[in-house]
């Protein structure tokens, strides 16, 4: 049975015990999927699953009162967010049903956009999109364009070690085998620059920030919500001004709050309407956490995240040797 049909059957079976199931459906055009909230059997037909299902739906789990029983459809990377939310006791395992999927990668629409622009075409004008034989076939402005899926997959997919949902109550389809290695090559290239060069890079990027906080709100681990220090006047950490200092300051705080918690799902970067490479900041901290604590966020439900724990001496930090 194809994955989608199996998923639908599983949801149909579990739906009576749930208030809703969150999955993906068709969005406003052929390239966009959108979160759908399934409350009855008829809604199940809205479900879609393909490489255009990019959203990490676990971000909705903390937005409902503790009384609701919610099902969520997750790919491998999304499932890590569920694990991290459970580890931090931000959601109650008894109220969540996880519909896990295998995933071979999702499209990065930024890459699709760039690939089309190279042919002087615009992504906003794509009239049809099909995924077939490893290709994303698009009809745009009277032309047919076939993009190799491998060329337009999100960078995170190329280094993915968790193709299959790491936690699930139901699993549809056959697990994808193999895993890539993440050698942090993207970071190495960045870190080879001088401090001044790196600062200059971020100045250029942050200039565009419109302070919409889509990065924050799309993040499944950003749970302060209405109490975020970015907007709070008491305490008043960040001015309402839109200078580079404020924008960069906010991103630094955002990144630090996610150190050891970020599962690198990349939603911050995907949500950014002006294409600021925010995941780079999160990856840097993720790498530090891994080196210091040998910990990868959202992979082991039973483990306590290192920055939520206290040990007199950490295994990998030689405090007394300084």
């Amino acid at each position: 049975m194809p994955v989608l049909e199996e998923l639908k059957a599983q949801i149909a079976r579990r739906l009576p015990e749930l208030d809703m199931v969150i999955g993906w459906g068709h969005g406003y055009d052929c390239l966009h999927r959108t979160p759908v909230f399934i409350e009855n059997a008829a809604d199940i037909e809205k479900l879609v699953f393909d490489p255009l299902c990019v959203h990490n739906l676990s971000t909705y789990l903390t937005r409902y009162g503790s009384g609701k029983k919610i099902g969520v459809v997750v790919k491998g990377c999304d499932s890590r967010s569920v694990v991290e939310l459970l580890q931090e006791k931000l959601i109650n395992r008894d109220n969540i049903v996880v519909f896990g999927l295998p995933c071979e990668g999702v499209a990065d629409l930024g890459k699709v956009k760039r690939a089309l622009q190279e042919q002087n075409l615009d992504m906003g004008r794509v009239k049809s999109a099909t995924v077939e034989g490893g290709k994303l076939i698009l009809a745009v402005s009277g032309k047919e364009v076939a993009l190799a899926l491998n060329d337009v997959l999100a960078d995170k997919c190329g280094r993915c070690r968790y193709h299959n949902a790491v936690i699930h109550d139901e699993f549809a389809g056959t697990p994808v085998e193999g895993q890539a290695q993440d050698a942090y090559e993207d970071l190495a290239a960045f870190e080879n620059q001088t401090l001044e060069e790196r600062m200059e890079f971020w100045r250029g990027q942050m200039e565009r920030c419109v302070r919409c906080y889509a990065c924050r709100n799309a993040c499944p681990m950003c749970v302060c919500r209405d109490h975020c220090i970015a907007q709070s006047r008491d305490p008043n950490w960040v001015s309402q001004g839109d200078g580079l200092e404020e924008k960069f300051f906010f991103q630094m705080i955002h990144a630090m709050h996610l150190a050891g918690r970020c599962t690198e799902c990349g939603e911050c970067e995907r949500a950014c309407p002006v294409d600021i490479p925010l995941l780079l900041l999160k990856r840097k901290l993720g790498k530090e956490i891994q080196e210091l604590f040998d910990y990868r966020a959202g992979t082991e439900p039973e483990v306590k995240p290192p920055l939520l724990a206290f040990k007199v001496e950490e295994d990998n930090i030689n405090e007394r040797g300084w």
Partner: protein
Amino acid sequence: MMAAKFLPADKLNEWIAELAESRRVLVPVTEQNAVVFRPYAKDTEPVFGRQANVPPKASIFPASERLMAFTYVKNPEDLGQVAVEVQETIEPEPTVVFGARPCDARGFTVFDRVYDGKKVQDPYYKARRESTLFVTMACDDPENACFCHWVGSSPSDPEGSDVLLTPLEGGFLVEDVSKRGKELLSSKLLSDGSKKVKEARAAHAAALAALGEAWSPAEAPAKLIEKFDDMGFWEQVSAKCISCGACTYLCPTCYCFNVTDERKGMRGERIRTWDNCMSFQFTLEASGHNPRPTKAHRLKNRVGHKFSYYPDIHGGAIACCGCGRCIKFCPASVDIREIVRLSVERPVSKPEKQ
């Protein structure tokens, strides 16, 4: 009478450079995958074939604007006595916004009724409005999220523009729309374009046709009011919203603002910044009460403001220019067209019996 001039494609940048000699010229440029407006300089390479991610809203209504600077001064004779010195800071800069879309320029007509109305005029807005001209580029190929024809506009709508360019084979038809626009057409780079007018009108018609049939939101003002207390409806249509402000911050017609005093020691400034009805702080009262406590209430405000409350006050004018950015850049693909449509088509849900 409107003048029709022609500008050869290879003279476009030269004309921009000429305009930039005496004023700030904002042009769309590419940064990463995004198109944003930046001041034109010698090596700037403007891009005109696509809609900018961020509209040129900040040219007149900056994301953060200093309204005044203030200094506290202690009386040396009596340190308990403190006076406040205030410096007014209206600093309009002569500006041309070059290459925005007609929807982007039309957006300011929504602002005008609020900030430059009969009863109230905002001096900051007015000063910038008067010092800024719009040379817009008619849209030749609308995008999937575009719906300007729903809201009484079109891909070649001149309303709000001073000069309208229409891309044609080999160049652009350049037409003045306002009196101030006429002043920009004196350049020697422009030749007579009267023979190209017909071609331009055909291009305008083709672009409008490409948008497909328009849906009329005429019933929306009344229907949205009818659904004001139907929170079940609003919860359903806002379910996927993540309450960020991308839709409002990228909207050419959203004009809500916040005013804060940002003080450091004895000095400070009062600034006005873009506000955002998706955010919790929007209309949060000092008592702690918030009349819009959930994302459903907040999205209701956004849709209601644009398609109901504003038209009711301003003679039926819709506070939306149909640029589609709120749809295109929404991380969850919330579609305002769908919400307005459902508000008209769906009956009000009956409250369950107590």
